């Protein structure tokens, strides 16, 4: 298990991550969700040893991963950076990654390359933005590590490419069970993939829940303003956001609605994207 306890990080006087506590269980696909600047990339960078936490501990099965090579060898972080020679062939890069990490799933890598229209003799530096992103994802999914972290894996990919990548993420997981952490803004797209969501905002963890429990995380209530005001005054639910459209009032409520709703109020469960947006908007929608 990978666990972060009170992990904090400052960049240039700004708190990028503030006392984050979160656990990543083995064999689960996680979504690390949140707005820009929420701290997703910073958290992954610290887990991946690219940056050092100012305070707190990051443990993998009880061992600190901070600058610990054996622990780091069990994790692979694919992010914006490209740490390999820019103009090496991709097959050469695969060999280099195999040199560092051991067995590399070349069969899957070959199929993924073909799916994205990339050749093994192509050079990373000459690929388009989308294809570069695909190559990074290939490295992450074909490396024999127990924890795979992808920071914005679909950035720059077209719709077809994104669907292809999601299919391969599931196939890679099926071939070898591992923990996959997807940090992404494409929340609606990963809803069918991830099993657990961790929502970050302002450098802290707002929520961490199983997707199977999403239906209990929040609902949208729609009613005429008078009816809604009366209901809210009576029940005092935890309101995440409130919008008005003419005489119509739309309220996002955290958690489930207790008891029967009065006549005139329509309840609808929030999907993941709507829930995360409501959660991180701070009522500013």
């Amino acid at each position, binding site marked *: 298990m990978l666990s972060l306890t009170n992990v904090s990080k400052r960049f240039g006087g700004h708190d990028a991550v503030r006392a984050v506590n979160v656990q990543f269980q083995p064999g689960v696909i996680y979504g690390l969700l949140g707005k820009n600047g929420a701290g997703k990339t910073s958290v992954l960078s610290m887990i991946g040893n690219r940056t050092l936490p100012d305070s707190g501990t990051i443990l993998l099965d009880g061992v600190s991963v901070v600058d610990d*090579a054996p622990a780091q060898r069990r*994790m692979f972080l694919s992010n914006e950076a490209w*740490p390999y020679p*820019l103009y090496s062939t991709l097959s050469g890069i695969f060999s280099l990654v195999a040199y*560092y990490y051991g067995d590399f799933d070349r069969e899957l890598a070959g199929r993924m390359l073909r799916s994205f229209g990339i050749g093994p003799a192509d050079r990373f*530096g000459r690929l388009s933005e989308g294809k570069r992103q695909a190559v990074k994802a290939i490295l992450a999914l074909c490396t*024999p590590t127990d924890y795979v972290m992808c920071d914005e894996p679909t950035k720059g990919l077209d719709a077809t490419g994104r669907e292809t990548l999601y299919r391969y993420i599931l196939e890679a997981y099926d071939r070898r069970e591992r923990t996959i952490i997807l940090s992404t803004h494409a929340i609606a797209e990963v809803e069918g993939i991830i099993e657990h969501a961790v929502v970050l905002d302002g450098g802290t963890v707002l929520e961490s829940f199983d997707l199977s429990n999403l239906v209990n995380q929040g609902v949208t209530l729609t009613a005429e303003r008078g009816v809604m005001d009366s209901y809210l005054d009576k029940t005092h639910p935890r309101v995440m956001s409130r919008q008005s459209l003419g005489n119509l009032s739309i309220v996002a409520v955290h958690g489930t609605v207790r008891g029967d709703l009065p006549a005139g109020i329509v309840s609808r469960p929030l999907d993941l994207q709507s829930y995360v947006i409501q959660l991180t908007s701070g009522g500013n929608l």
Partner: protein
Amino acid sequence: MIGTRRGGARNNTAVNQYSIALRRQIAPRAVIFCAWTVWYLAPVSLTHLVNGAGLLLVRMHAMSSYSPGIPYVEGLGRGSGAMMVLCGFVLSLAMFRELLSNAVARTAIACTHMLANVALVVAVALLGTALSFLSDTFPTLLSFHNSFGFEVFARSQVSVFGPIRFPDLMLGWMSGEADYVAMFCTVTLTLLLCIFAGHAAGELWAVSGAIARVTGVAAVVVLVPTAYSFRSDPGLMARYIRVIGLMRGHVTRFVPHTLLGYDLPNYQTTFSIWPQLAFTVALCAVFAAMSLFFTRRRQLAGVQRVMGIL
């Protein structure tokens, strides 16, 4: 650890980690060494081609000519010293991202960086010493002249592993006596000092902010030419040479000297190599400690400025 159906992570012991990192660190240095060798030996081949197969005597001035301007680089020549500083600086910036991103710990990166630097320096020093030895032994085949300072060490004005001795005056380094151990030790440690300084500067650069970098570059731009201009000041130069003499453990004695039948009063100077070597080793240790200190605090910027390099 999660059971794996296909493959599995490499068994990563500490030795394995160091071995992996060291091999990756040595690769670019091997390229540098080959390039260096070609750069300095190419004129020999070219001369040979131009003059035909009958040319046996090839005289070559590799590296730079003698200059007392830069302390301790004097032992080999400015060109190689500067090259080593540059190598240490650039390689410390170039290799870090790849190694850290592939599960090599910062301490291992710093240590393997230094070990690879030592390997490069030893290779360069061995080549230089071997060429000098061949030039002395087979002067009709090769006459490879390094800098004057380099030659001084080869021609045994230093006393390395025995009591201080005074060579015949006026014969000096032209006498044909040679102490290649002294030459190798001095060249190795001098170049090591240069490359370790470059490494420490690279690590300092990496952990510094933009303002500190600009300030540092401005300081170098101003101070280096200023210091270089002091070369023309005879008083300062005399003091500088005295300091170098102290570092080298100079021993001077007054002797009458016979030249062309006349007795001329003169001084003979010789020196022990140990003070210089000890001083160089101490400085190397300081730079190594600085490099380790900075590397352990080094982080990768979230946004990569130059893909594949920094």
